[in-house]
């Protein structure tokens, strides 16, 4: 095996989501079909057309001490919590260098968010207006910069091979993991901590997304609001949190005897170049990313048994993705059990690719895929196998693969493939 085509595996997972404060509780809630969506009862939400969101199950203030938390945007706090879990889960006992099994010069981080430190930016603007220039926090810039979460996690684990932040709206988390896989494949790093994070539950982003008519306004039914592929779907529900994984060269993982959750096979990428926010309705752009996945990786569509779809519960996007799967995979689509965990977590924007990669990896590891909740009437245009009502057992024997789809405003399409080991 040469240094430009090394096998990459997943050796650690971590998450903090609307369903739970770690990956285990999140996974358990997914299999139980729970919704993480609730009413926004804060005063600032009273006048908004959208008054529901999927707020973090465990507030980061319960985990991170205040002296540290006041220097970290909420998105960086989520990333740090998920990264710490993933790092410990991978079997590391201290940061790189102090734990002799990790060389800091061979360790990277790639953690993305779609929007960055938006609550910091807006909160400090309020301080500027209300209390004056002198009171604006000197920590504002490192808190609001989108690379802040990646840089803070990099400091935490002592990463010196590279600290990166690809930004592609709601595809950001998956793009980060794809970038991390490439870093290891091409020999630039042996281990990369990668994922996505988001914390944008604030009146301005909610008003803005709401005015785009992109969000569900089912304020009287929070838990039923996120309903991908149901005929009554009416937009996404904003979520917050982070999902982070530890990626490692198979060789490095084997040498230290690490537990391996799955192989990270690779990514497929394309751009719609159709509209700044509308998905290309035929699914051609997404199909191109799926074909790119097959062309540029050692992956047989016959192996793919599960897809964690992007499906955000919007009328157009949910269908375009399914059309694309059919276009790219033809009859092979029939053996793919497809679900949208956003029906439970809401849409974590840049965090989605991280959290949904964690779900996809756990589905392979435990050989069971979570369901899509809230489908009362399946859209009649759908001709693929949607997992609904209860989790689906995946084949217990043989090598199986699963995909995590993520798409973002701007026409970004990123598909990640993982495979059982």
């Amino acid at each position, binding site marked *: 095996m040469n240094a430009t085509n090394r096998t990459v595996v997943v050796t650690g997972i971590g998450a903090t989501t609307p369903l739970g404060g770690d990956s285990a509780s999140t996974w358990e809630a997914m299999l139980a079909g729970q919704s993480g969506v609730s009413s926004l009862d804060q005063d600032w939400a009273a006048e908004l057309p959208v008054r529901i969101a999927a707020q973090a199950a465990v507030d980061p203030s319960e985990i991170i*001490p*205040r*002296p*540290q938390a*006041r*220097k970290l945007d909420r998105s960086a706090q989520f990333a740090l919590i998920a990264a710490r879990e993933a790092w410990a889960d991978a079997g590391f006992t201290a940061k790189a260098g102090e734990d002799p099994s990790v060389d800091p010069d061979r360790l990277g981080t790639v953690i993305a968010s779609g929007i960055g430190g938006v609550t910091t930016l807006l909160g400090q603007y309020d301080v500027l207006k209300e209390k004056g220039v*002198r*009171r604006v*926090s*000197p*920590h504002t810039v*490192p808190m609001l910069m989108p690379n802040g979460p990646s840089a803070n996690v990099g400091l935490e684990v002592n990463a010196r091979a590279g600290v990166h932040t690809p930004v592609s709206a709601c595809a950001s988390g998956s793009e980060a993991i794809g970038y991390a896989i490439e870093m290891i494949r091409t020999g630039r790093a042996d281990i990369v901590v990668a994922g996505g994070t988001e914390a944008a539950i604030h009146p301005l982003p909610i008003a803005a997304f709401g005015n785009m008519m992109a969000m569900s306004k089912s304020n009287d039914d929070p838990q039923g609001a996120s309903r991908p592929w149901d005929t009554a779907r009416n937009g996404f529900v904003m979520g917050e949190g982070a999902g982070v994984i530890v990626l490692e060269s198979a060789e490095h993982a084997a040498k230290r005897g690490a537990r391996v959750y799955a192989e990270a096979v690779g990514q497929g990428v394309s751009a719609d170049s159709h509209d700044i926010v509308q998905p290309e309705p035929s699914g051609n752009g997404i199909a191109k990313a799926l074909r790119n996945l097959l062309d540029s990786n050692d992956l047989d569509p016959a192996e793919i048994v599960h897809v964690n779809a992007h499906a955000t519960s919007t009328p157009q996007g949910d269908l375009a993705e399914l059309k694309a799967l059919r276009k790219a995979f033809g009859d092979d689509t029939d053996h793919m059990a497809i679900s949208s965990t956003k029906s439970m977590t809401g849409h974590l924007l840049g965090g989605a690719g991280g959290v949904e990669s964690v779900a996809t990896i756990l589905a392979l590891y435990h050989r069971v895929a979570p369901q899509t909740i809230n489908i009362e009437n399946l859209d009649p245009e759908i001709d693929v196998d949607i997992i609904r009502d209860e989790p689906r057992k995946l084949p217990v024997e043989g090598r199986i693969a699963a995909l995590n789809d993520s798409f973002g405003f701007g026409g970004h399409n990123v598909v990640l493939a993982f495979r059982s080991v």
Partner: protein
Amino acid sequence: MAATQEEIVAGLAEIVNEIAGIPTEDVQVDKSFTDDLDVDSLSMVEVVVAAEERFDVKIPDDDVKNLKTVGDATSYILKHQS
């Protein structure tokens, strides 16, 4: 009424506790903000702004670099408070 040296040290201890989480009893005149009290360069700006408000004193940016210890800050405030 101007604050006494003792009041200034106690006030700085509360500020450092709020910003860096250091117990107030550890904030003594001989302690360095950066080396002993976990106050990094950006947090030092916060300490200065909080001290300005609390003790009604102006501390220009150019003078901040000379305030290395709690004692330095205390003397500065004693001398410049209005």
